[in-house]
């Protein structure tokens, strides 16, 4: 599991140190502190945190600005406003969404600890669906992504592209916040942020294979420019599971025109995705 990186930003020195000490004591985490928006911004730019715990009012700005920046640099960053119940002006920040812990609450530290765990480890502020057994799945995905024997998987991608008469196919890996490409044939089209990824929705579907006829009209993807800029209009994705049943990758084919996929199409891609999973169990190579 990736080590937590927590940034504690607060203008008040004793509060900042106390909060940082509390986080250090409770979590196996790298903890940094900042006393201003400028100092925190620099740290966020250098090494985006997994969790941001921030006050609201700073002499040079406010905590919601930091939330925006932290999410810009790390889409999955958990953001917690930890401050007194002062008036928080959400004008211009209506869509940033944060957890808020009033510092004066008797159980403030207990709540803060629970929320760092929820947002930093369980991804409870994600803008995409998260499958069950996610932590195990992430570990298995890392192992899958690091393997060097990629040629069989490239051949499977080629089989998929050829079968559907499409120029682009890939086997992608869905990590905590981003998307990796294990193999690709044809133009590289995969969006690299998980929250913009078609594969993130494939992983959490009831069925192994998910088809999208037209990303421009599908409400899950219509407002995601990265998909349209990559030229992805139609999509078929099949989940690849390792021997433990964990969803370690997605076999994806991309089309540049609207297209329907029938049951036979889905069954074929499903078979290829299953074949890719079988390779992880030492199965026969195509």
């Amino acid at each position, binding site marked *: 599991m990736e080590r937590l990186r927590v940034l504690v930003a607060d203008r008040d020195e004793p509060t900042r140190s106390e909060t940082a000490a509390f986080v250090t004591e409770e979590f196996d985490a790298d903890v940094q502190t900042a006393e201003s928006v400028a100092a925190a911004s620099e740290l966020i730019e250098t090494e985006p945190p997994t969790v941001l715990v921030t006050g609201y009012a700073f002499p040079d700005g406010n905590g919601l600005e930091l939330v925006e920046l932290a999410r810009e640099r790390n889409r999955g960053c958990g953001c917690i406003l930890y401050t007194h119940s002062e008036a928080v002006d959400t004008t211009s920040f209506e869509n940033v969404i944060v957890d808020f812990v009033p510092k004066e609450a008797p159980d403030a530290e207990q709540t803060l600890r629970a929320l760092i765990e929820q947002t930093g480890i369980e991804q409870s502020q994600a803008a995409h669906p998260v499958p069950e057994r996610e932590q195990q799945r992430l570990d298995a995905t890392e192992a899958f992504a690091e393997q060097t024997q990629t040629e069989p998987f490239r051949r499977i991608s080629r089989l998929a592209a050829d079968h559907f008469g499409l120029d682009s196919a890939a086997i992608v890996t869905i990590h905590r916040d981003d998307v990796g490409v294990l193999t690709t044939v044809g133009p590289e089209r995969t969006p690299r942020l998980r*929250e913009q990824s078609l594969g993130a929705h494939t992983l959490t579907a009831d069925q192994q294979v998910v088809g999208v006829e037209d990303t421009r009209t599908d409400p899950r993807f219509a407002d995601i420019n990265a998909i349209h800029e990559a030229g992805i209009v139609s999509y078929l994705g099949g989940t690849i599971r390792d021997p433990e049943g964990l969803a370690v990758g997605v076999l994806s084919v991309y089309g540049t025109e609207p297209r329907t996929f029938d049951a036979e199409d889905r069954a074929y891609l499903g078979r290829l995705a299953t074949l890719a999973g079988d390779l992880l169990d030492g199965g026969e190579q195509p």
Partner: protein
Amino acid sequence: MTADFTFPELPLEPVRAGSSVLVTGPGRAASKLARRLSIELDPGQNEGAVLISTNTTGRSLAAEAAASYPDLDLSRIGVVDATGRADVESDTAARIEAVSGTGDLTGMSIDFSILSSALNEDGIDRLRLCVDSLSLLLLYTELRTVVRFTHTLGGRVRATDGFGVFVLDPTMHSPQVEYTLKSICDGAIEIRVADGGYEIRTEGLPGQHEGWQSVDITSA
């Protein structure tokens, strides 16, 4: 271990603390069911409730709750008024906070935390949360933001061993939207009109009745 949440007046078995459910159904029916799920508190568990309302003002909601449940202690209820009509002048014991409008999801998440904290400070042990409705939020903001909002509040429910209810009218959205939001919750409760009354069925919640069950939602 925290006790399960119970619904003695509804055809539902207890639900594990920390769970969130998506309540789906046409218009008012889903709202009424959600209100019953969240306002009918368990007297043995020292519960309270926070309701985020996009269609009824905080003041009206508190008045309706008082009329429907004369024995309800309104000081156990908090309302985030997200109608944009800022009707917070209150002659009720319920705590009411208002955000600037239905598009202010940041304000809603913050006010929910403020009300939760205030109710906890009053000595209340655990909370039920109701967001009515996600459908209206989706008219003002994109799906990904609503997903983050639902995840965040669901995470808070999990972290505090509460119970969360999110309302969605599927007739207003594509099946993909419903599926995406359902996948964020621990389970779902669907309500439909049947034989002049209503029926519900559950999905993904362990230990529940199979199939459709008659339900009375008139008291909400």
